[in-house]
């Protein structure tokens, strides 16, 4: 457990959602140190030294396109490893690729709908703040569907594919075991088998494992 509350920057232009998110984060024991509603404000706020994580909307004023995403990618260029959790009303694997491109981890990309599972959302915030990765199931499903490396993927069993998907979402072995109603040890066996079949170097580190799986799925594409 952390010794102090996580400090959060929240960028969301719609008051209704800003209020809802703030309430949920505060209920979860986090400290929302700044809330902003536009891209220029976000750029300034991202330079604050006291941030543990930035939670931001993709689409922000003034142009209502992807300025949140762009600001996040830029901020991470000057502050590598800055934890960023991107929330959006729709997810694009393309944008996920842009966020993951620097390979630094500490990235989350979730649909706003996921916030309604409050505990899972708070867990995702914790995990990303700790350098982990959390991708929306929709993004992972799209990556799995579109990967060019069909053949090795077809060698996986049904169960192994489920484990791969949850792993790509950024879940720990414990969480995967919980979801699939199996033991942690069984999950460990599945992951070893997956890594062998996909010809990935084995690694004990959770975060690097996730990034390796995502890089494999994206098959060299940005």
């Amino acid at each position, binding site marked *: 457990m952390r010794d102090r509350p996580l400090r959060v920057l929240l960028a969301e232009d*719609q008051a*209704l*959602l800003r209020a*809802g*998110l703030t*309430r*949920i984060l505060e*209920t979860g024991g986090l400290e929302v140190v700044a809330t902003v509603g536009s891209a220029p404000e976000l750029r300034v706020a991202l330079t604050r030294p006291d941030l543990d994580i930035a939670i931001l909307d993709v*689409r922000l004023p003034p142009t*209502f396109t992807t300025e949140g995403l762009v600001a996040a990618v830029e901020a991470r260029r000057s502050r590598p490893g800055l934890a960023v959790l991107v929330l959006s*009303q729709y997810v694009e694997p393309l944008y996920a690729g842009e966020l993951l491109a620097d390979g630094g981890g500490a990235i989350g990309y979730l649909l*706003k*709908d996921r*916030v*309604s*599972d*409050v*505990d899972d*959302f708070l867990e995702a915030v914790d995990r990303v703040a700790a350098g982990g990765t959390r991708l929306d199931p929709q993004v992972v499903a799209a990556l799995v569907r579109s990967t060019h490396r069909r053949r090795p993927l077809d060698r996986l069993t049904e169960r192994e594919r489920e484990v791969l998907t949850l792993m790509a979402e950024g879940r720990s072995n414990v969480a995967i075991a919980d979801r699939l109603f199996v033991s942690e040890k069984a999950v460990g066996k599945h992951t070893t088998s997956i890594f062998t079949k996909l010809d990935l170097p084995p690694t004990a580190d959770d975060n690097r494992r996730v990034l390796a799986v995502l890089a494999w799925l994206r098959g060299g594409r940005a």
Partner: protein
Amino acid sequence: MPLTRIRSLAPTPVDGAGLGERLRLTAVCLVWALLAAPALALAIGSILSAALGPLAVGMVLAHGVVPATAALTRLHRRVAGALLGSPVIADYADTTGRNLVTRPMRWLTDGARWRDVAFLWFSATGGFVLALLPVALLAAPLAHLTGAVLDGGLFWWLLVLLGGPSLLVWWLITPALARARAVAEGNILGRSRVERLRHRVAEVAASRADTIDHGAEELRRIERDLHDGAQARIAAVGMSVGLAEKLLRTDPEAASRLLQEARTTSVEALEDLRSVVRGIYPPALADRGLTGGVEALALQLPLPVTVSLRVPRTLPRPVESAVYFAVSECLANTVKHAAANRAWLTGGLVEGRLVLVIGDDGRGGADPAGSGLAGVARRLAAFDGTLDVVSPAGGPTLVTLEVPCATVP
């Protein structure tokens, strides 16, 4: 107005209006007949200048003859256009930036200039006969009567007897002759078929591009409306319910408040969805056609709008929809800018055209080139429709929408 559209060619009862119409047309014919003289002179001048083209004298002649011809045909175009009720437009080749030598060269290869020359010959020959006939048929009996009264000879009185049939013929054929002459002028002096088609294609291409732009813009607007409205509210409902679920045990009171909030927000989300649907295809328009749609629209406006539409339910759906949104935009303008106390809307099908007139008693000054009305005009142009705005400062404002439209059986 002496120069208005020729009324019906069908036999009309002998009355004041019919007489006035025929006298008016005979006067026009007299002018046409008189203009045959300058036309003949210019026709000869044109041929001479073209033949003498290589010599300096031909050039000089052309600089006098061609502009004079243009001035004469401009007058004829205006008269014929007024009588036909549709403008006769010339498309001379552009000669800006050309000098005294190269300009006549361009004239030589300009089809429109040669049609002017052809018109001069027509005006001096067959056109002259056409124009002179009504004048002669009317003038002869009068001249004979004058002769009979002054001279008193039997011969004059016999001629006067013939005057009756002459006047009858004048009464019967004057409108047809005047119209024939106007049609001939329009055909010679107006755009050729190819030019007309070229212009039509350009118009259609422009209106199609506008339609596509407009469609893309509308889709973007709908996406934005959904994203910022219903979608955001439903996400917020999810957040409230999720948090309430988490707090149910520890803080039931807060959980209950959150649920209440979620309920309110979900109602708002539905309201948002309804308003987006209204923006795409209003339910009243779908259920009741244009009349019902517009009546429903008028009821929701913050000023009294009297609607008297006589429109069949069998209009093509796209036309209904386009006209509905045009009316909606116009009335929205009235509400926003006109400071009006009341507005009214009338309309119906007139000879295969849907004509709607929207008026208000506001302060006027509406700008037809403003973004709102220009957008309406562009949207109607996709259906070959037009928008006419009369809005003097101080009001009132009258907006006329016209869309050609065949009813669907």
